[in-house]
């Protein structure tokens, strides 16, 4: 039962040298390699003549004359007896270089040294160190992307595990500022990475699309009247181009498409001065990861917000920790929903202020059935808590970004007929820019209704 002996047990096999004039036969290469070996080339060797080179060049792949027997499908020499080693060509070159280098009389030690140099032969322990250090560095540099990729997974244990691993890595990356290297790489690659000079606060993005005028400084009387005459909770003043409404759009990664569309859909009229702030992998369940109540308080304070457009829940279908530090692992647990509702209610109350409206956007339907069920539970929490709070208007995108009955749909019919509009990205979660546009149109209508003027372009 012994296996057939191999046809060749050597590490690398040699083949004929590469032809003269063929790329790679660069005379300077000999000097470079000799220098790397710490030795000078002793004497220039005359170029060698290789019979048959022309024929080989004329017929790459070895020519067709070899295909006389049963060889129509593939080269008969291929695939047998450890053939066609990856580095045969290189070794053909190496062999001649060695010959020239050493006067052709050197022993196997130098051959091995040459092989080892080019192949990078190193002890396994050292290779392990190189790989571990490289992967650790790469993980730290790419932590944001890894978190984003993890949160794009369908909800479940794998997603939770991935996020549990990558969140701490991301924290270390941010402390060491290594994530900026990834931003730099994306910027260099022409992607949507932030340009390196622009600081990237937190894990997501916070960008302000100002109308023509600067907002009034915090604490200053709201335009349109002094504080004594300020409208009640949830009521908005009528904005003008000189005194636009100050809007904060905030939430998880779903806010990216919404925020961009909202800014783009209102900039011509200039009646809104909008700050967009989204944080990937964030939500209301993991305040240890990102504390939204605190962040929103800061945003509201800095921007003196009159309108809050918030969207949470896409990352909230995971475990939550009760006030007494008891972990509740799943949304199905009966203790989960009361705690989540408590947090939602608390945030709604925190955002309440005279002359300020809160527009709470629920999550659109999701493709993954279990994720969709969790999102429905979360959305119901938003709707029920908002019912008793007149300053909160709920926008449900289910019928807008989905099929009839609030069912997930990748495409929706175009408003004026024609080709359907693709509203969801292939992951079944994120919105496309077109989906963001649709959602923004509805949010702008709600703001316009509260302000008594059409704010959309």
């Amino acid at each position: 039962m012994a296996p057939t002996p191999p046809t060749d047990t050597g590490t690398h096999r040699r083949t004929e040298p590469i032809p003269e004039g063929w790329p790679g036969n660069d005379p300077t290469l000999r000097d470079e390699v000799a220098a790397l070996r710490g030795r000078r080339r002793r004497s220039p060797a005359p170029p060698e003549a290789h019979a048959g080179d022309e024929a080989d060049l004329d017929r790459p792949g070895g020519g067709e004359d070899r295909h006389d027997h049963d060889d129509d499908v593939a080269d008969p020499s291929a695939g047998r007896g450890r053939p066609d080693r990856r580095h045969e060509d290189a070794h053909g070159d190496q062999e001649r270089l060695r010959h020239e280098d050493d006067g052709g009389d050197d022993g196997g030690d130098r051959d091995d040294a040459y092989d080892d140099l080019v192949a990078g032969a190193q002890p396994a322990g050292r290779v392990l160190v190189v790989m571990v250090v490289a992967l650790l560095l790469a993980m730290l540099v790419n932590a944001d992307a890894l978190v984003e990729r993890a949160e794009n997974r369908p909800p479940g244990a794998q997603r939770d595990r991935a996020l549990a691993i990558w969140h701490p890595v991301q924290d270390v990356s941010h402390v060491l500022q290594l994530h900026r290297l990834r931003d730099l790489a994306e910027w260099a690659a022409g992607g949507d990475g932030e340009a390196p000079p622009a600081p990237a606060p937190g894990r997501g993005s916070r960008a302000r699309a100002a109308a023509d005028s600067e907002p009034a400084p915090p604490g200053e009387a709201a335009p349109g009247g002094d504080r004594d005459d300020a409208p009640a909770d949830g009521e908005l003043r009528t904005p003008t181009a000189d005194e636009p409404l100050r809007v904060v759009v905030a939430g998880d990664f779903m806010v990216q498409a919404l925020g961009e569309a909202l800014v783009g859909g209102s900039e011509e009229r200039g009646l809104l001065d909008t700050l967009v702030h989204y944080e990937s992998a964030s939500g209301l369940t993991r305040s240890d990861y990102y504390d939204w109540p605190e962040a929103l308080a800061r945003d509201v304070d800095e921007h003196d917000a009159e309108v809050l457009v918030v969207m949470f829940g896409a990352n909230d279908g995971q475990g939550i920790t009760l006030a007494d530090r008891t972990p509740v692992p799943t949304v199905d647990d009966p203790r989960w929903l009361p705690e989540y509702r408590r947090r939602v209610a608390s945030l709604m109350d925190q955002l309440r202020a005279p002359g300020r409206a809160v527009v709470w956007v629920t999550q659109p339907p999701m493709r993954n059935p279990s994720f969709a069920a969790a999102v429905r539970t979360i959305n119901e929490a938003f709707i029920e808590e908002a019912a008793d709070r007149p300053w909160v208007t709920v926008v449900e995108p289910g019928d807008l970004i989905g099929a009839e009955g609030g069912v997930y749909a990748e495409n929706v019919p175009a408003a004026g007929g024609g080709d359907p509009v693709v509203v969801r990205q292939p992951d079944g979660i994120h919105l496309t820019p077109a989906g963001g546009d649709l959602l923004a149109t509805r949010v702008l209508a709600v703001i316009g209704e509260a302000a008594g003027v059409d704010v959309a372009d």
Partner: protein
Amino acid sequence: MQFPTAAYAVFFLAAFTVNWLLRPHHLVWRATMIAFSLYFCGWIDVRFVIVAVGMAVANGVLASAAHRARHDGRERAGSRLVALAVAVDVVVLGVFAYHDFFLDSVTGALSGIGLSPGEPALDLVVPVGLSFLTLYAIGYVVDVGRGDVEPVGIADLLLYLTFFPHLIAGPVVRVDELVPQFHERPDPRRVPATDAFALIAVGLVKAVVVASWLGREVVDPAFADPGAASGPALAFAACAFAVQVYAGFSGLADIAVGSALLLGIEYPRAFDAPYRSLSLREFWVRWNTTVSSWMRDYVYVTLGGNRRGRALLYRNLLVTMAIGGLWYGAGWTFLAWGVLHGVFLVAERVAAARAERRADRGAAGLPWWLAGGLRWALTFGLVCGAWVVYRADSLAAAGEVLGRIVTAASGSSAVVTTPAILVVVGALACQLVSDHHTVAVRARFSALRPVAQAALLAAGLTLIGALGPDTPAPFAYLPF
């Protein structure tokens, strides 16, 4: 588990460490590598573990029985056992990989005559890697049946079939090439790290960056709505798909070969610059070489090869290529792609014979450079045309794309952008780059300190990540 993921990186680090620590203790090493490989199988699909172990046992038992029968002079019994083993392998592959294809075809045929069959009773998921595992198993049992190799032990066979580097994208290695390496003890002080890192890095660039980008920016939009695109734009998309499918296949194979090299196992090269080819025969020598040579040895030769006259040779070529097409994917388009290449190969043989007779009569030919250019253009054009059939959702869609390439002068050319042209032309130009171009670069990398090597590798991974897609599913075009 896909290659370009953090999960695979962690898995491989563990496998690498254990591999070199246990290599001196062969039995423990082999058991551990089997465990790693089965874990890898299970990560793909837990049921795949059962299938893999079952196939190893069945093929091992039947191959040993066939060997004994042959040894005892019962040639016919040996042949029957080999045929049985091959049938088992084909049935397993058929049940998993071609179940939907058969059902859809039967349902379509019955609907065509007014019958309405019910919903299919089975809902099977094709375990990724089963196609390669089947090639390994059939190759082994046929080699034993032919007396080319001695049977190996069941543990060796299980490791041979499931060794994780080759499970997803090959290459296909024969038992006498791989199993002896399991018994060797490579020098742990001389791991060819630079060669392996270079293979993995190039593989990642090809599979993650080039293939994904071309698919997203050029191929998918063009094939999604071919009626809107102009003929030249569709022709460009076909060229882009040629590059995409090569980059995807060969990139994964490079990663597999590089991973194995780090473990002290050598695989042959799977792709050898196929788009340099000046003929279809040469294309099939350079394209997925190990699979092509498998098809030659186990299908074409079994059918009779070129030993029974010209007509049967042509038939054998067509049948081999049709089976090859079906191996690449379960669908009529893949079958048509294989048959198309079979027809090309037959036509090329006929044309070559005529050209030879003309040359014998002393007729003047074209200058070598012009003839070479024309042959390259014709070969590449035919290959791209066949890729359209491979890529299209249906034969009708393939016909529409090919028809518009020829007839539609007007239409959208949105997919023909400067970056896309640069990527396609650059990728084709890279086919001219050979290993010996990079000797100095590899030597310089090898001379660096470990920390510098690690930093360079991390920078490379970051750049690849930045250039790659956001979602880790760039290989959707791989049908198996």
